[in-house]
């Protein structure tokens, strides 16, 4: 009864002479929360970028909802398979403006930005409405991560690709963010997460499955 949401096969990535991963396959089903594990430098971020279509694929193919990535118009694809970088760019102006900003993009024009929805998501993360009025240039690294997370959730993607999305948060805020994201993934059918995290306890709390990124043996 499972629905294949995001699949990949035969992926390869090299950096210069070094092969990071080769013949990598992934199958994320709706409702799943996959934790991507691998040592530092194993190319977890590059894998998420490849899944988001931000880097060209060296080999293999990524399928979303059964359709190859290269057949999707990329804005449509990325609006559904959304990548959150570890260090989101600060942006400019106030938090409210930054949350509203992607709604001006053509792909999101038919969606309406609701301040109440943004405030509700922030409340779930332990922030009150005053957060909306903060200058984004003065946000801490953790607050910038919260802003990016709320912004992504407001855009209603199907798959979230989270790259250490809570790495700069304090433990309480981390738990709140995990709870919010888990609740989001279960709120509607057809949603899934791929989460890169170095924190084994976090993976235990969030992930329904772990995916290892060690397909290539390094020769010393």
């Amino acid at each position, binding site marked *: 009864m499972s629905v294949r949401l995001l699949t990949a096969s035969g992926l390869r990535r090299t950096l210069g002479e070094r092969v990071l991963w080769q013949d990598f396959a992934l199958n994320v089903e709706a409702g799943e929360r996959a934790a991507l594990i691998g040592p530092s430098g194993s190319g977890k971020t590059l894998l998420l970028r490849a899944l988001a*279509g*931000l880097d060209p694929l060296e080999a293999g193919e990524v399928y979303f909802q059964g359709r190859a990535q290269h057949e999707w118009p990329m804005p449509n694809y990325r609006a559904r398979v959304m990548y959150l970088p570890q260090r989101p*760019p600060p942006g400019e102006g106030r938090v409210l403006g930054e949350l509203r900003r992607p709604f001006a*993009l053509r792909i999101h024009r038919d969606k309406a930005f609701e301040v109440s929805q943004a405030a509700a998501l922030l409340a779930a993360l332990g922030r009150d409405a005053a957060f909306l009025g903060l200058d984004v240039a003065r946000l801490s690294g953790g607050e910038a991560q919260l802003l990016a997370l709320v912004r992504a959730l407001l855009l209603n993607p199907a798959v979230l690709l989270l790259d250490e999305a809570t790495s700069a948060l304090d433990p309480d805020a981390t738990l709140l963010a995990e709870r919010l994201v888990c609740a989001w993934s279960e709120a509607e059918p057809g949603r899934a997460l791929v989460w890169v995290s170095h924190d084994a306890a976090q993976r235990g709390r969030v992930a329904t499955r772990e995916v290892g990124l060690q397909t290539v043996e390094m020769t010393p």
Partner: protein
Amino acid sequence: MSVALSFHQVALAAALMLVNALLSWRLQLGLGREIVVAGARMTVQLLLVGLILGWVFALRHPLTVVGIGLVMTLLAAQAAVGRARRRYARIYLDSFLSVFGSSFVLTGLTLAGILQVHPWFEPQYAVPILGMVLGNTLTGVSLSLDRFTSDVVARRSEIEGLLALGATRWEAAHAEIASAVQTGMIPTLNSMAVLGIVSLPGMMTGQILAGAPPDTAVRYQIVIMFVLAASSALGSLTVTLLAFRALFDARDRLRAERLRGVKG
């Protein structure tokens, strides 16, 4: 007509370089060699240009005029890339296309449409006007190119952040495109603002020296300023769009790896 100059008089002016040489020697600036080389180089270049122009003017053939125009354009396109600290594979071609496209179109329009010179390739008009247009376009193209290629690297996370949210490549790079085109147009806009107050434009001065009535010289200068502004705007826009096409692919990806840093 202006007073004819003999070689003696030119040599007299060259003696003024002795002031620089003397200063360098007394203050131990170590510039003596450079002063001599720069002075000699300038003299040889200009004498050569004088010879070539004399030949082009005497021939009065459209092919020689267009030919020398193309050589000037090639040199300008190469110089425009010179400033860019980051380059991609087709950067020289893109620079040439922008400098060539804007300069030739604007010079052609000026000669045939505004000044209504007969024949249109009359070298006395075509060569100096193309030269001025090229000089200005080169500045605009070079500033835009440098700005855009630097911004794309410096603001990579902002651009890719927008792409990741579903922006098209145009939406994601719009701010960088706009600021590159603006940067290219700033020198022309600045010089227009102070023209005649702080600086007396070279062409107008030259025409007055050559005996033209000031009001004619002024009208020529106004025409030229508008042409220069239009050409540098067109050149800046073209080169920015070409660089945009080179650095963003059809799959709405930023291909920053196509840029190579240049030492210096």
